[in-house]
C-alpha cells in the first residue's frame, strides 16, 4: 500500500520576518529559514509509523518547498521524494493551492489510498488547504488526526472531534490532516540517511499556474499588535499578596 504525505514547511518562527514586508521578501525569508512545521512533522511521523507496522507500506513524500527542504525530508528515508514546485500558484489562494496539489497527487501518487497532510499547509494557510484539497481530489476528509490504529478489519483514526476525541473507521480512500500530539512527534533521522539524502536525486514536478484567479492580493503588511486599552497594572507585594490579589481578580471576574 502506498501512503502519500504532503509537506510544505514554514519559515522558522525563531527568525523575525524582514522589516520591509513584501511578497518577494516573504518568499525569500521562507526559503532561507525553511523548517518543518509541527503539523508537517505529525503527518510525516504518522506515515512512518504506518510503515513501521507494515513493511509493505510505501511512503511517498511530496514536498512543496525548495530542494533543501526536500532533502531534509529525504533524511527520514521515505520510499520516494518528489519536490512539488508551486511557483506559479498564488499561495494565499487556498483553492488554487488545493487544485495544484490535487494535480500533483494525480501525477505522482494516484494509487495511494491514504493521503496525509498537516492541519495547516505552510505559512499562508490557516487550516483551509487540507479540506480544500480533499474536496478537489475527491477524497473524504478526516481532520485533526492524532494516530492511526490497526485492527483486524480495518484502520481506525483517532481524531480530535469538536467536543471530544473520537475514533473513526478509515474508509478506503481518504485524506487525513494531522495535528500535533505527543504520540506523533517526529523521530530523529538517522545520520547515515541524512548523508544519503544530500546525494539523492530528487525529481521536481511543476504545477500549472492557476488560470482564473478568483482572489487578488491587495496588500501584505506586518501584523498589527493587539490593541490594549491600558498600560499593564502590576500586582506587587509578597507571594501571599500576589496570590490573594489574583484570587480576588478571578473571583471578581466571575461576578462581572
Amino acid at each position, binding site marked *: 500500500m502506498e501512503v502519500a504525505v504532503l509537506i510544505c514547511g*514554514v519559515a522558522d518562527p525563531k527568525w523575525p520576518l524582514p522589516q520591509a514586508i513584501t511578497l518577494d521578501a516573504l518568499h525569500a525569508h521562507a526559503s532561507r529559514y525553511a523548517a518543518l512545521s509541527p503539523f508537517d512533522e505529525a503527518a510525516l511521523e504518522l506515515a512512518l509509523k504506518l510503515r513501521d507496522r507494515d513493511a509493505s507500506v510505501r511512503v511517498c513524500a511530496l514536498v512543496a518547498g525548495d530542494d533543501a527542504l526536500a532533502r531534509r525530508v529525504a533524511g527520514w528515508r521515505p520510499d520516494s521524494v518528489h519536490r512539488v514546485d508551486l511557483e506559479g500558484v498564488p499561495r494565499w489562494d487556498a483553492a488554487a493551492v488545493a487544485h495544484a496539489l490535487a494535480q500533483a497527487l494525480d501525477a505522482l501518487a494516484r494509487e495511494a489510498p491514504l493521503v496525509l497532510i498537516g492541519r495547516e499547509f505552510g505559512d499562508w494557510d*490557516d487550516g*483551509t488547504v487540507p*479540506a480544500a484539497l480533499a474536496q478537489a481530489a475527491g477524497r473524504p476528509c478526516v481532520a485533526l488526526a492524532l494516530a492511526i490504529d490497526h485492527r483486524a478489519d480495518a484502520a481506525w483514526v483517532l481524531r480530535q472531534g469538536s467536543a*471530544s476525541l473520537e475514533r473513526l473507521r478509515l474508509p478506503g480512500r481518504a485524506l487525513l490532516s494531522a495535528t500535533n500530539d505527543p504520540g506523533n512527534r517526529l523521530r530523529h533521522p538517522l545520520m547515515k540517511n541524512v548523508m544519503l539524502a544530500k546525494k539523492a536525486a530528487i525529481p521536481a514536478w511543476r504545477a500549472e499556474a492557476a488560470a482564473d484567479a478568483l482572489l487578488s492580493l491587495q496588500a501584505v*503588511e506586518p501584523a498589527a499588535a*493587539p490593541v*490594549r486599552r491600558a498600560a499593564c497594572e502590576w500586582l506587587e507585594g509578597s507571594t501571599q499578596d500576589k496570590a490573594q490579589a489574583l484570587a480576588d481578580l478571578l473571583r471578581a471576574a466571575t461576578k462581572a
Partner: protein
Amino acid sequence: MQVTVILPPWLSDRGERDALARTGAALAAGGQLDVLACTGAADVAALVQRAAQELQAEAGLRRLVVLPAGPEGEQAAALIAVRLGGAPLGRCTHLAVEGGIVAARRAVFGGRAEIELRSQAALTCATFSADAGAAASAPLPPMRGIALDAPPAFEAEPVAETAAFPRVEGAPLVVSGGRGIGTPEGFDLLARIARAVGAGVGGSLPAVDAGWVPVAHQVGQSGKFVSPRLYFAVAISGTPQHLAGIAPAARIVALNSDADAPIFARCDVGVLGDWREILPLVAARLESPP
C-alpha cells in the same frame, strides 16, 4: 450580494451565535441575509452536504458565506467553497462587502503578517470570530432553523479522555498555561483553579506539543479563538501566534517569572513570579469560602 451566515451545531455558545448573526446583518447592510441556525449532529460532512443544497447557484447572484472561526469552521468553509466552485478565504480578522466584492484581511506566517484579499468569486466562504460585545445592541436578525439529519460520514466510536479539562468554548474565564509550566502537574493545578471559578482550561501550542493539555484546548492562531471576560495566562511568553487566539476585548492577566516576557507588553494586569509558588496559594484561596 447575498450574505449567508451558518451557525453550526458545534457553536453552542448563545452569545457567539448571536454575534455572528449580527455580523452577517452588518455585512448584508440591509440587503439579502440568510441566517441558518443548524441543529443536530455536529458533523462537518453533514453540514457541508446540507449547506451545498441551500447555496445552489442562482445566475448573477454573488454570495458571501460566513461560518464561525475554528478548525471545524475552516474545514466546512473550504469544503463548501471548493465543492461549489467558489473561493475559501480562511479565518478572517476583517470582512467587508464593497460594491459586490468581498474584501478581507487575514493572518499569515503564524500571525506575524497580514494580507488583504479581494474575492470576485460568485461564492466566497470565510470564517470569522465575531466580538460578542461589539454589536450587542444591534437587533438580532431572523434565523432559519435547519435540522441536520444526514448519517455520519464515518463509523465512529467515542473515546474516553484521561484528563477531562473544562472546555474553553464559551467560557467566561479562561485559565491557560504555556511552555513555562513545564509539567502536566501544573495543568492539574490550573484545572483546580478553573473549576473553582467556572473557567475553561487553555494551553499554548508548546504545551499541547508537550502533551500537558489536549489539542482541543489549544488557544491561538492554530487553535481556538476565545473571547472570555478574563484570560489568565500563566507561564505564557505571549507570542503573536498565541495572542491571535484571544479576543481584543478580553482582559489579560499574566503571571510569568520572566520580566522581559512579551506578554507583559500586551496584558492588562501583570504578576512577576514563579507559578509554582503562587498558583497553589491561589487555588487554596479560591477553593475556600470567600
